[in-house]
Structures are given as C-alpha cells and as structure tokens.
C-alpha cells in the first residue's frame, strides 16, 4: 500500500469523525486524558470521625487536610459547635445590672439585682433605711446628733447644768438631724 493510500484513508477517517461535530464521539489521546485527569483532585478519602472538616492541601492537588469540630471548648486548634459555645457562655456572668448606687450583694442565684442600699441622708429614717449600709460621714453625724439629743444644756449659755434625756431607739441617732447645740 502506498503512502498516498494510507493518507487517503486517514483523511477519510478524520472527516467521518468530524462530521459528528460533538466531543462525545471524538477520539482523544491518552496523553490528553492523563493531562486533564492530572488536574483533578484525587479522592479525599474517608474518616471515622463524623466531625472531620476538609481543609485545603498544602500543595495543589495534594492530600487534603482536616480539622475536627469539637462539642466542647479546649486548648487546641479544633473548631467548636454552637452547643459548645453556648454551654461555655452559660457558665459566664451576664452583664451586671442592679439598682443604681446600691452595693452589689449576692443572693442564692448569684448577684442580687437590688443589692444593698446606702443610707440616704436626704431620706427618711424608714425601715428600708435601717437596713441600708451607711457612710462614715453619716455615722459621725449620727453619733454627734445622738449625744446632743441625749445631753442638753439646762442653763445656756453657761451650761453648768445638763439634762440627760431618755432616748427612744432610732429616733435620736438619725444622722440627718441637725446638730442643734453647735
């Protein structure tokens, strides 16, 4: 067979294949297949832990990496679930709120939102005020006022005689009372 015959047959084959005009019936080469397949990612494999995330390989087309999703917080590089974060946050203190100016106090559940009042010198000496904490200045005033109410000058201005007044509890030692003797 001549070279001309061989070329003629080859051309006929190419023409017949080209007539389909779709890739599905176009022959391709092993080299092309190898090149194109080589661009694709190999199977990433299988893990036994259902919480394993796929991460990128360090080199193109290389073995993929992995990261574990944990259900509790820890000192590592794992990712964590929403449940783990909420569990941890539930153990933390919410923003502290309470009555403005009151001292923070505890109750059975943590911090009491009312707290403990501080004696208000401008207020009445109510039962609520009795339970309040007190400032040093008001203690001082209370003692001064108590003495001044308990002991009063009987012959001013000399004050050589004094009356000793009987006091009713909680009435004379009001820190807000004015010191009338001075």
């Amino acid at each position, binding site marked *: 067979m001549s070279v001309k015959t061989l070329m003629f047959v080859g051309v006929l084959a190419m023409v017949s294949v080209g007539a389909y005009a779709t890739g599905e019936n176009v022959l391709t080469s092993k080299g092309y297949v190898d090149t194109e397949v080589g661009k694709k990612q190999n199977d990433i494999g299988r893990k036994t832990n259902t919480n394993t995330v796929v991460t990128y390989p360090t080199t193109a087309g290389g073995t993929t990496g992995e990261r574990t999703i944990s259900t509790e917080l820890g000192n590592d590089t794992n990712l*964590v*679930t929403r449940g783990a974060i909420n569990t941890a946050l539930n153990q933390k203190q919410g923003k502290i709120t309470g009555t403005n100016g009151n001292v923070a106090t505890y109750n059975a559940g943590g911090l009491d939102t009312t707290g403990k009042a501080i004696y208000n010198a401008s207020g009445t000496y109510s039962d609520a005020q009795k339970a309040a904490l007190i400032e040093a200045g008001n203690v001082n*005033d209370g003692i001064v006022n108590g003495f001044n109410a308990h002991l009063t000058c009987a012959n001013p201005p000399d004050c050589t005689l004094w009356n000793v007044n009987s006091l009713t509890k909680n009435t004379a030692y009001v820190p807000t009372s004015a010191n009338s003797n001075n």
Partner: protein
Amino acid sequence: MRKISFFCLFCAFVAQFAYGDNNNVPTSLSYVESKLSGKLDKLPGLGNNKMLMYTTTSDTEHQVGTPRDIVNTLGDVSNGDYTDTTGSAVVERGAIKAGIDAKQDAISGTTDYVAVYTSTAGTLDEKPIYGTNTNYADALVTAGSVNDAIVDAVNSELTQIDASGNASANGMLWKISDDITVLGTVDNNSAD
C-alpha cells in the same frame, strides 16, 4: 478496500505508539473511567453556609460527607438565649462576638473598695471603705471604725474631773464638753 483501510489505521496506531508520544495515542473508555475513578465527584450546590466534611461511609471516598451547617447566631442572646447546648452547627465569628458581648466584662476596681451598681448594665462603680488614715465622709464604714467613733465621742464629750475641775481618773465628777462636733480620729471631714 475495507480490509485495507482497517489495516492502514492499525498500522498508523502502531506507528504512533512507536513514537512514544501519548498525545497521539488514542485511549479507551475503560482507561478513562479507571483514571476518573479515583477522583472526587462534583460537589453539590449547597451554598456557602455549609461546610465540606469527610465521608465516613466506606466505598464513598470519591464523595464528600454530610455537610455541616454554618450559622450566624447562637440564639437570641439579647434575651439571654443560650439554650442550644447540643447544636452541631459551626458558628460565625460575628455570632460568637455577639454572644460574648452580652456577658460581663472583666471586673476591675480599686483594691478594698466596694462595688456598687450603676444605671448602665455591665458597668460598676465603686465606693471606698472608711479607714482611719483617710477622710472619706462618703465612704462606707467598718464595724471597728464605728466602735472607735463611739468611744472617741464618749471620751470627748465626758471628762472625769476632781472637785477643782481638773481632769482626774479619781475624780467624782464628770464634765460635759459641748464640743462633740468632730470626731477627730474618725472623720475629720464631717461637716458640723
């Protein structure tokens, strides 16, 4: 003629193999399939709120596992909703920050001061405790300082004297000094 054509094609293939150039070597369907068998299947279109997970099922290594949700909230943290403690979704940074922001910042204050509430959630003020080396009229006071103040007040107001009016531990008389206006060792800031 037909036999000759097939023969020619065969000869052409043989000649191409002889060159050793794979680009000119036709390949078979089975070869292509064998090469593709080790490759990953196309990923499903699930959007960017799903994480790519490994499969745990045997013989599905060319597939990925069940996707994992990525969520943008821990719950309604503005209402203290941290009730989802078993959810397996992974959370966005913004959601975690929102959750943490709803919690109390680290508390700091002056040593030995008392913490008092403010009108702003998460913010505390402080109040000093009266000490004998300080003059805080508005400080809270300890039991010991109250005791000292009372003792000082009594000692300042009542003075034991003799018949001549001089201070004497053996005196039979007591002088009342109407000068209890400032309890010197307790609170020099007391206005009176």
